[in-house]
């Protein structure tokens, strides 16, 4: 009944399979599980809270998830290589502060400063990637150290002061509403997600990233410059972290050193939750951009809904953790159930 049981000669059109198989595959996918969960929670929150479906809440939900999804994507690009990037927050804040500095101190126009900020993200990503490749140490420990270093240098240089001379045009992006519900930030994020989908599906570089992540040795011997690709992944992560931070700058109207918490640690939870719930393998080599988007959205929605439910504010974190656990478990159970039923 399953795809594996129907042998066919490899021909150019066999990879698509027939419609039923495609659907089956979709139902078996993580993404479908997430969509179900999201739908279920929307119903629960809509029924049991006051104002969950209000235009403002939907707008702010979209805006918050824009940032969380971007943070998730930033982590995802490194998870692809089988690594981790604990420095996402620190890199993001550094990019945002570079942006603020270029505008406030150097007086550059904001589009150029924007490029400067993203460039800062890429540069820090390069430092991470290069160190990981050259030392051969696990990125976990490298980024644990650089998280501290990046953030420390940034705090030292800025004396922990915010840059707030952000042009109104730019900060207006954070408050702008398109058709009552949509934040332009969400559109930016979705555009980035689409670009990443394109990258991993339809470009050599993206495929090489997946190959290098799945099996560095095999990729190297197949002619992929693994070191270069890993550095590239970290740079991409830096750029995306910078994007997330710049969106927060637009949202807050200021570049604030504390926007990702001490050492940027506050970004870690959303950074991992998106990709992990979305089915990106922590071992690397497999990626699901859609899953990351949905996963990050689910998390944002859960925390928003829990706040609305007026559970004693201090218990929110517990419920969030429990719900995450349940989400992961349900997903696991659903898949093993489906697999068993279809293969038996």
């Amino acid at each position, binding site marked *: 009944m399953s795809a594996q049981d129907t042998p066919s000669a490899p021909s150019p059109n066999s990879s698509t399979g027939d419609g039923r198989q495609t659907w089956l595959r979709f139902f078996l996918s993580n993404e479908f599980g997430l969509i179900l969960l999201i739908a279920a929670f929307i119903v629960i929150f809509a029924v049991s809270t006051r104002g969950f479906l209000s235009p403002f809440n939907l707008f702010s939900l979209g805006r918050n998830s824009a940032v969380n999804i971007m943070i998730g994507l930033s982590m995802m690009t490194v998870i692809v290589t089988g690594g981790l990037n604990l420095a996402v927050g620190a890199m993001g804040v550094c990019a945002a502060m570079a942006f603020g500095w270029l505008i406030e101190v150097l007086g550059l126009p904001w589009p150029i400063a924007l490029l400067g900020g993203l460039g800062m993200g890429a540069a820090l990503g390069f430092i991470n990637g290069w160190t990981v490749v050259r030392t051969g140490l696990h990125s976990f420990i490298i980024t644990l150290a650089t998280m501290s270093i990046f953030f420390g240098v940034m*705090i030292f240089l800025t004396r922990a002061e915010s840059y707030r001379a952000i042009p109104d045009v730019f900060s207006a992006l954070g408050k702008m509403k398109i058709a009552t519900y949509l934040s332009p930030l969400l559109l930016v994020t979705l555009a980035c997600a689409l670009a990443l989908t394109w990258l991993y599906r339809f470009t050599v570089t993206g495929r090489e990233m997946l190959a290098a992540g799945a099996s560095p040795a095999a990729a190297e011997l197949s002619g992929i410059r693994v070191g270069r690709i890993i550095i590239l992944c970290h740079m991409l992560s830096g750029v995306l972290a910078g994007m997330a931070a710049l969106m927060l700058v637009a949202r*807050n*109207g200021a570049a604030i050193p*504390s*926007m990702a918490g001490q050492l940027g640690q506050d970004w870690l939870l959303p950074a991992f939750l998106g990709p992990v719930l979305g089915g990106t393998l922590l071992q690397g080599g497999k990626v699901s951009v859609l899953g990351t988007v949905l996963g990050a959205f689910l998390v944002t929605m859960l*925390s928003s809904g829990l*706040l609305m439910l007026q559970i004693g504010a201090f218990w929110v*974190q517990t419920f969030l953790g429990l719900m995450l656990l349940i989400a992961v478990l349900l997903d696991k159970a659903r898949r093993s159930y489906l697999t068993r039923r279809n293969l038996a």
Partner: protein
Amino acid sequence: MNTPFKTMALAGICGMAAAAAQAADDSRIAMIPGGPHPYFAAWEQAGADAVRDFGIEAADYKVPQKWELTQQNQLLESLLSQGYNGFMIFPGDPVGAVSTAEELAENGAQVIAGAGCFKDPSPAAFCLGTDTGNSAYLGTKELLAAMGDGEKRIAHFTGFLVDPNTQLRIDAVNKAAEEAGATVVQVIADIDAPEPAEEKINAYLAAHADEVDGIITTAWVPAVVAANALRKMGDTGIHMVGIDHDEVVLTAIKDGVIDGTMLQNPYGQGYIGTFALDKLRSGCTVKDDAPFASNALTDKFIDSGTSYVDASTVDSYIDAMRAESDRILKDFEATYLTCN
């Protein structure tokens, strides 16, 4: 609920019940600190008391789970969606929280800042809080006075570097020291969590106890830790002025381990803030010529009172704060608001 708060609450009721007046009938006030911190705990009781005293529909104390601007923003957005329409906010960041405050205002809610200020320009009607710089300045003065004559070398222990108040405090302490010809030999910052505070303060005192004559602390946790450290070290001749009303600090004052503490007035902030928000909801506006003070962040600052407590006044410090709250509330409406 700790005893001081209770007493303070009672004090508030006695002193302020008279002020009960016409209230907007749909005011749902939310008081939001920057994150969990013992300092703000008095807000909850203050809100409940205000609800009773002024007939407000709700005045709830809502805490973000973490000291994280994003968390606070989300909480504010959520509360707005839930129908809250008056907000007293301790800004998670004086700059970064402004844009959320603007959104709240755009959606018809009243906003004031409590305990800490937004940076101007902001939609907050005013900022009701402790003048952190001034408090640090006064505290240092008291410390210098307590140290008497002779060499005056001061160590300054303070909170998170990412909090701009920290820089204000550092500057204020330096200024006070300079005026008195004292030197600030060490600033240890970023220690508003117990363990790093414990480690760094103890390490510092271990190495430099004989090179320091006085300690000024300008954050809750360093004050507690430094007080404990001095108690442990016994007679060192080091003077110290702490901050806030943690029991450890108060006991240390009573026992003569440290000289005193700079009290702030969280209960008064919560009570007066709720009162003011309700007034603003019912149509009052802030007077154009209100006698606001200014500080580094805003020109619409109302000092909720800060006072120095030493061994002689520590038992009656609640009275001091009550007097302060009383004084502000009594002619708050007349001084700052125009109501029809």
